[in-house]
């Protein structure tokens, strides 16, 4: 297991370096640069000053080498958009995204697997309705889901209309205030993931229920609920575990659509703003942290898969 973990961690390190460097190089090579943010009316002096300040007047390889040398000392440069160091900006946004992603992952896991067990083990109107709702949730783009959730919040006042905190949230009530702001973005993020889990869990469980070992247990007089939960489900869960890491990683790396619409100051929104502004070092910083979080999610998925299927552990 330790060799398995070491190998996965090495892969994570490589992924982070490649993602951040590629982001920097692609942003540099794409048409336009951060000075386009100064607008078409910017003076030639302003443009040349900004280009010099951010190293855009140097060859791309020289710029990358200088950035990489600083990055190994955890100095990721300065953001043009925010006029402050990239490191603290990205870490703050990643922390906010992590709160959102973990809550969404918890909701998606509980709802998706729970409903998957229900639809995989039963027939009738309710499972059919759940399956239909899952398909609908899977086909809705996050932007639309977020706007729909925002619309409901705006019209009903059931929960806050966007943002991450209230203006006057005092320290003792800070966590409850945060919790009150979570439902809107969490549901928007969790719905498609929960639907994916439900579909996979349902299909896998439906298959396992017809296996001979389940029939044998039933013949021994094991009650139906135990048959599902203690015999069929543990075998079926590995299909969910196989994509769990990817889902966790994509949630942790931030969703610009959900974060922009719901006003959540997370990594996805920061990355989008950085890309729009061609904020080269901020893009690279976001890509590095995003890659680290995707790696973390995939590592989590691999560990879960290894725990659910001993053969994976043995191969590792």
């Amino acid at each position, binding site marked *: 297991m330790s060799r398995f973990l070491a190998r996965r961690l090495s892969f994570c390190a490589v992924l982070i370096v490649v993602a951040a460097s590629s982001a920097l190089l692609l942003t540099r090579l794409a048409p336009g640069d951060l000075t386009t943010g100064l607008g078409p009316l910017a003076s030639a002096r302003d443009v040349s*000053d900004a280009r010099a300040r951010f190293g855009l007047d140097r060859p791309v390889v020289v710029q990358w080498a200088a950035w990489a040398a600083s990055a190994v000392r955890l100095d990721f440069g300065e953001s043009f958009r925010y006029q402050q160091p990239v490191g603290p900006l990205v870490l703050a946004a990643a922390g906010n995204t992590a709160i959102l992603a973990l809550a969404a992952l918890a909701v998606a896991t509980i709802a998706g697997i729970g409903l998957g067990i229900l639809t995989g083990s039963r027939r009738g109107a309710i499972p059919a309705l759940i399956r239909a709702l899952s398909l609908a949730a899977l086909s809705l783009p996050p932007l639309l889901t977020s706007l729909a959730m925002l619309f409901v*919040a705006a*019209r009903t006042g059931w929960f806050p209309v966007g943002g991450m905190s209230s203006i006057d949230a005092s320290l003792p009530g800070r966590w409850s205030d945060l919790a009150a702001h979570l439902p809107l973005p969490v549901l928007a993020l969790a719905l498609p993931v929960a639907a994916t889990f439900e579909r996979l869990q349902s299909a896998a469980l439906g298959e396992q229920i017809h296996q001979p070992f389940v029939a044998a247990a039933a013949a021994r007089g094991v009650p139906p609920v135990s048959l599902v939960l203690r015999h069929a489900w543990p075998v079926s869960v590995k299909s969910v575990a196989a994509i769990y890491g990817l889902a966790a990683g994509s949630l942790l790396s931030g969703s610009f659509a959900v974060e922009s619409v719901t006003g959540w100051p997370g990594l996805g929104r920061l990355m989008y703003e950085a890309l729009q502004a061609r904020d080269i070092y901020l893009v690279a910083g976001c890509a590095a942290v995003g890659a680290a979080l995707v790696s973390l999610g995939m590592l989590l998925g691999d560990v879960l898969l290894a725990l659910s299927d001993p053969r994976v552990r043995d191969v590792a």
Partner: protein
Amino acid sequence: MSIRPRVPFAGVLVSLVIVAAGFLFWRSTTPRQAASSQAALSRGGQLTAGIRSDPKSFNSLVATDESSNIVSSLIQARLVRINRATAELEPWLAEKWEMAPDGRQFTLHLRPGVTWSDGTPLTSADVLFTLRAARDASVQSSLADGLVAGGQSISASAPDERTVVLSFAGPSGLGLRVLDALPILPRHKLEASLANGTLRTTWRTTTAPGDIVGAGPFVLSSYQPGQRVVLARNPRYWRKAADGSALPYLDRVVLEVVPEQNAGMLRLQAGSLDMLQNEVRPEDYVAARKAEQQGSLKVIELGVGTDADAFWFCLKPEVKTKDPKFAFVQRREFRQALSQVVDREEFARTVYFDEAVPIWGPITPGNRAWFTPNLPRYPPDLAKAKALLSGIGLEDRNGDGVVETAAGTEARFTVITQRGISSYERGTTLLKERAALIGVVLDIAPLEGGAMIDRLQTSNYDAIYMRPLLSDLDPAGNMDFWLSSGQSHFWNLAQKAPATEWERQIDMLMTQQASTIDLARRHEIFNSVQKIFAENLPVLYFAAPRLFYAHSTRVVGVVPSVLRPPVLWNADSLGVSAPPRAN
């Protein structure tokens, strides 16, 4: 064997839950009437406005983005201010001024008793410091370019604590209007930073709010990145209301960062925002009017916008000489033919849903001081447009519907525009359809904003459709647009010498206009400039949109302006009538 137990009542239970949820939703979405649509101004309270992005910096010399400018206008003050509603210059920190007869010197008198938000007196030394800081090379402030008259920087001196003398190298048509963009900064807080060359990085958004000092109506209270800027009432603010009471009326202004425009509109309708940063988009107009009928919003017409969507070809000879199309694109008859083919009334109806007025040049009726209706016009006339093309050798010789030269060069162009802006999409589509009627093919290529500006700055394009924003209502404030050497002379940027005779004429007239003090003479000269422009059509304009703004009915004291920010420019005189809905 069956392991699928039936649950006979579950379906009924789920149905009941759905019906109950639907009922609750219907009950809670019944339109709420505002407490009072005829609200009276009261003291105190909080106003919450949406901004599209975080401010870049709290240093007004460095950050020029819209959000930073809004924050700056709330926490800082200028010597003089352009009233956004009347476009007139009005006293601000300077209570009065005198101009020397030759128009080269202004003596400004500061208001007595004005203090910074930390209690330190504001003096002429602060004004001199601000001018010095804005021009300091280490600060790299874009405001320095505006502090120029007669080709040289404005020099300043201070005979005493309340008097500042500004000397211009030559007479300036703009006069003191150049000072509207310059917030006066506290010398006692920033002098050390200027001395050690770190002023550019001082007052970043990470600075403790208490360290940021201003003479504006509000002070920075807190900033939560990605969420909001909170500004509290400046108890030492110098300005009084007409009845002598202290301003501002509001206790607090909250600027919520709402990057997504649809989300912003929903939050405005829900009452969690009192106003947005900008005017209502055409696609939101119906929703805003509906909310107005329900009593939650008030929709006001700001007037005709001062900027309009424009279309132009790249006319830079250095880049285009090898392009065989340049031979006819540079002919004004070609551009006149395109202007002749577009029905401006139809354009206003289609692109702006009838909320626009036809225009024939860059100065719209929204700029009341400088607009002239007496310009050459090109009413829709297909026959005349075809004749103009034929006159420069462009005819459909092979019957494929596209005009070409005798050498076979087709009139086919790629028009780049910014992706995701609905008025650009509608405008380019209409333009493409109309141009096709005279055999000119326009292929539309929407690009991401940064990529489009890059193409513009490098002159790497056939044609562009976008809305260039002129920085000042006074033409002398937009010399970069009018002069052939200007960085904003879009169709042929930064020429070393005027490429055409008519550009040489405009250069001469604009230079004369900018250095003339007599307003009537300035108008006369600028009307001539507009006429030359409309005859040669380097840029084609079709319609200027009427602008609408929506704000909560609880906001009172609103004086709308077509200039940005449309309402917050007058923040010290705004009030609210009821508490906002909790966020």
